[in-house]
């Protein structure tokens, strides 16, 4: 059965009528969007628009009040967090969530998709396949020569990369990133965009980001989850620098990109936001 209002094509992720209210306050109200296979989707919006809440809802951290989230035929709203991960959804948190007291190798190893039960973890063997995979990912995230350092010694940007690496090793079909470049220097941001462009092959990515330059660099489509005026909040925060990114801010100002806007350019740059 195809969900109502969707074309015959099967989406990877279908969010429909998603609503969550905290003590009567609707943090997310009747949100619908669809993510294709191999698509990079960016969610933007002012603080409090419910962007992070959308990720929380998809990965099961928050339970929805109404609506459905379907991922590969599975209804995520009824599954536990670990089941959602096993189904193929990976999520990066806003602040780098890594294990400071473990080495980078161990950080990555914990995300290796094996030995996830208590017994499995007790009997888990660090074999060559694990080592190779960890080293492979460490190379991707520019941390290969620091494998045996404690993660606490990494810079903020490197911690963000490490967490992205931890997700990569999990090999999710849908990768959700919450502000992956927040607090990064310009050069780190460029490297991150590069990294994301490498890792998006064969998977879909859902990104929350304030940095409009970065959004333009990576996005295929943009979703604004709030029904309120999306620009007000963004202007107030100063996260948008409209002068350099007229196309996107014009799209925001037109108020017509509250739900998904399709980007026509195949070069992964968000250019046609005029709606």
């Amino acid at each position, binding site marked *: 059965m195809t969900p109502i209002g969707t074309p015959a094509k099967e989406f990877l992720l279908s969010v429909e009528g998603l609503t969550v209210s905290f003590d009567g306050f609707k943090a997310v109200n009747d949100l619908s969007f669809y993510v294709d296979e191999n698509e990079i989707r960016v969610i933007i919006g002012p603080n409090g628009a419910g962007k992070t809440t959308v990720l929380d809802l998809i990965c099961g*951290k928050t339970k929805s009040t109404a609506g459905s989230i379907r991922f590969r035929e599975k209804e995520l709203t009824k599954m536990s967090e*670990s089941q959602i*991960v096993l189904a193929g959804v990976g999520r990066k*948190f806003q602040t780098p*969530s890594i294990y400071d007291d*473990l080495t980078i190798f161990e950080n990555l190893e914990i995300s290796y998709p094996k030995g996830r*039960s208590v017994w499995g973890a007790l009997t888990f063997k*660090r074999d060559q396949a694990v080592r190779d995979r960890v080293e492979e990912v460490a190379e991707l995230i520019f941390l290969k020569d620091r494998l045996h350092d404690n993660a606490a010694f990494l810079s903020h940007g490197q911690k963000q990369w490490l967490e992205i690496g931890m997700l990569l090793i999990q090999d999710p079909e849908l990768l959700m990133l919450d502000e992956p470049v927040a607090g990064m220097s310009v050069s780190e941001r460029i490297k991150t965009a590069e990294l994301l462009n490498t890792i998006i092959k064969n998977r879909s990515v859902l990104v929350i980001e304030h940095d409009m330059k970065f959004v333009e660099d990576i996005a295929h489509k943009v979703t604004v989850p709030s029904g309120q005026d999306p620009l007000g909040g963004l202007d107030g925060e100063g996260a948008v620098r409209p002068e350099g990114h007229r196309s996107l801010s014009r799209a925001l100002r037109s108020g017509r990109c509250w739900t998904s806007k399709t980007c026509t350019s195949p070069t992964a740059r968000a250019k046609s936001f005029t709606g």
Partner: protein
Amino acid sequence: MKTAPSYMDRKDLLALAVVAALLLVVFPLALDGFRLNLVGKYLTYAFVAVGLVMCWGYGGILSLGQGLFFGLGGYGMAMYLKLEASSVENTKIQSTPGIPDFMDWNQLTSLPWFWEPFHYFIPTLFLIVLVPVAFALLIGSAMFKRRVSGVYFAIITQALAAIATILIIGQQGYTGGVNGITDLRTLMGWDIRTDSAKFVLYFVNAVLLIGVVCCAMFVRDSKLGRILVAMREKEDRVRFSGYSVANFQIFVFCLGAAFAAIGGAMFTLQVGFMSPSLVGIVPSIEMVIFCAVGGRLSIFGAIYGTLLVNYAKTSLSESFPELWLLGLGGLFIAVVLFFPNGLAGIWRDYVQPSIDRVFKLRSKDPTDPGHDVAKAAAAAAE
């Protein structure tokens, strides 16, 4: 890089050898029977402390109710010994011969059903571990599945320890009440009150403790150990990496309970009684202090911490009985404030570096792994 893990293993083996030598050779040679039995008693608390290292140090789950599990293990053993001591001919002056004396005093005329399995030694051994683990499983499932953690969990476990004490004291006919289960004599016909028996039991206890330490080291060095550390730091990250955090918390809580129960059973055997004074809030918190003083991240530290605090307790409470509790509280505060990693931290930060320096001077041979490590450490320091 490759030398680092093997060096760790070597250091652990060395530490294990030192503990084994201390417990199995030095103490038995250096101490008289009375003092050795005292050390044996202290070492039963070390079981709990090792469990707390896993639970609290690694898993980040502070339980203030380990006395409950220590008590359950101890009572299990005491029930077996009591039944053996209450044979029909030993108790023929009672109105109901063949049941423990305190039951007779409380007008019980038959053995309660839950005492029945403790007639037999092998089932008793299983129950000593299984009952506390089942309790831990129940408590853990109820708490961790509901995401109760941190200070709330600590308070609840403390309340459980208090409830257990009240229950034991209140149900005098079934438990022996405030006196506990006393007048224990023989284990399968072997008199445990003699000096030679106490000597043997000391070694059984020490070997069991070393076994528990090895078990804890195995868990710590497995991936599960690293997941525990990860959970302690970023519970959500572990959860969203596909792990059921609650299951791991339940596991380590049960592990701590099993260790404590073994300690409790050995306490009963060596000291010859079990009473609610070893179950409640005060002993539970004392055990946390042993663990904190030793260093809550050090399995070996837990043993040294337990020995040291108990030695201080015995010697100080003999001279200044009224000051002891103040001293204990002060010690806990001092450790938390100044040495958050306890004795193990002091060792690591102050003693180990000087040993390493000597080691470095001696190993001129570059193929010596110790040399590489010393160099790596020096490089890391730069």
